[in-house]
């Protein structure tokens, strides 16, 4: 983990409400594991005060540049869009947190993402592909143009199932697809990011198939590197959910096993 002023390479509309920021960050890119995040400071003299956490969307093949896909939510993201121009620098801390665990023996995995949660998955698809692991993607969002990264997942050769809420069937269709495919394909692990409903579905399936499932979580953060204890969520300490404890999303997560975070 380090703090750097990274040169902005590009910052452009991606699709729907999303923008794509690309910066030169060789040391962070080289060290980054799928599911880890960076914490970006966009701030004038009078704020906003805190950094903004973002999953790393992609790392360049030479591992010198990283990309962040961000949704225009509020002041911080609007400032990112308006001030981070090529030629300027971006103050960021990374790589942060604990990422996805891809078992060495896995052959086929399912990636299940919704909305901006999808942005946490392409780095995992890339890693899987580099190890000869097939990944099938199950992606959803409110509207079709808010599903990011479809070309990345399809490029790796796995199946890509898309569903948007404005389409008949809506979001439930993604989990239906997952269940239908799971009866035909032997998944070795399931990776989720984006909604509690997806976490529940993935967890139920993973328990039935006796395979691991993990999900990346979000929580409001102050530091992003484990110092403030501000970003806790309640997690299950055992798969039955009998004992619970608070865990910092930025330190123990953002990726947790689904049994830790389901109904926690």
């Amino acid at each position: 983990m380090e703090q750097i002023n990274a040169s902005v390479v590009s910052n452009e509309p991606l699709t729907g409400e999303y923008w794509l920021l690309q910066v030169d960050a060789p040391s962070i890119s080289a060290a980054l594991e799928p599911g880890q995040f960076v914490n970006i400071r966009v701030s004038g003299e009078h704020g906003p005060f805190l950094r903004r956490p973002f999953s790393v969307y992609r790392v360049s093949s030479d591992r010198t540049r990283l990309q962040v896909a961000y949704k225009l939510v509020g002041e911080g993201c609007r400032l990112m869009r308006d001030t981070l121009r090529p030629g300027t620098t971006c103050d960021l801390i990374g790589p942060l947190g604990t990422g996805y665990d891809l078992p060495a023996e896995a052959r086929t995995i399912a990636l299940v993402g919704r909305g901006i949660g999808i942005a946490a998955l392409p780095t995992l698809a890339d890693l899987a592909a580099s190890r000869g692991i097939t990944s099938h993607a199950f992606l959803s969002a409110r509207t079709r143009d808010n599903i990011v990264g479809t070309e990345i997942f399809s490029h790796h050769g796995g199946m890509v199932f898309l569903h948007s809420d404005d389409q008949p069937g809506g979001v439930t269709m993604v989990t239906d697809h997952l269940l239908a495919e799971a009866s035909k394909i032997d998944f070795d692990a399931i990776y989720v990011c984006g909604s509690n409903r997806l976490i529940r579905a993935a967890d139920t399936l993973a328990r039935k198939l006796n395979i691991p499932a993990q999900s990346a979580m979000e929580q409001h953060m102050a530091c992003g590197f484990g110092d403030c204890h501000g970003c806790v969520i309640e997690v299950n300490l055992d798969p039955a959910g009998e004992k619970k404890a608070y865990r910092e999303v930025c330190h123990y997560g953002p990726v947790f096993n689904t049994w830790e975070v389901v109904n926690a």
Partner: protein
Amino acid sequence: MPDLSINIAGIEMKNPLTVGSGTYGHHGNFNQFFPVETMGVLVPKTVRPIEWPGNPPRRVIEVPSGLHSSVGIPSISWEQFEAVDAPRLRDLPVPVIQSVIGRTEVEYAEVVARASALNAFQGLELNLSCPNLKQGGLDFGYDPDAAYKLVKRARQETDLPLVAKLAPDYSSLVSVAQAIEAAGADAVALVNAPRAMCIDIETLKPMIGNGVGALSGPAIKPMAVYMVWTLYRSISLPIFGMGGVANYKDVIEFMAAGAAAVAFGTVSYVDPMALPRALVDLETWLVEKGIDDVKSLIGAAHGSDFQRPAPLKEMKHAV
């Protein structure tokens, strides 16, 4: 090169910069952005003698120029602290003032005695000001009588320098600080974060999990400077000043108000290199101004004629 060293109650600091308890370095790592010995003294997060999960989420909210938070001092067990944290802290190449808290006078005395016995610290800070606990902290920090008794009792448990960390409640600040001085504390630290609240206008309920929380960061700086200034005129003890410190200018301002040492708090979450940068900038500024000893800044805003009060040996107000 100007002399940056400061000695507070026998603790030799190579410069006046430190960190606010709870705002710097966790999970055993105090070197994550810069070597910990860059600062004059380290003040790690408050420990308590009992295991405690901390307050429910949501714990942090961004507000203009600051942070609204209610973390509630989550704590590992004392046995774990003793076995894992204390040896690490003992080996750091920097003096350590360990912050401690209890729920009752007896528990404070107990944690002071136990922390003292670890032979790992150069001083202890009594947290009399946590805004986020149901018991302890402010119960003592707002009440001169309770503070007097507590410090007097803690004093009997240790020979280490004792720092009392105070809340920014102006109505009781001076009387509490005087009581603490009379009870035998060696220094005061202020300000802890004042209590604060944010309300969600959709649900019409407080936004922070605990309902009430704290306010910290640059938003509270002028208030904190004033409190340091006030105590410099009311007691004779050295002061660790803090509250919204973000750069070398803030360090100078707090020292001029009366602080002998200055702590970086919430800013480290956002700008973890703020302290080492301020140290370089402070030294440059002193050179530019031709000031050869940083100690000459302490209390400078009160004028050269101003004399601090004599040490208080007894409680000013009846117990």
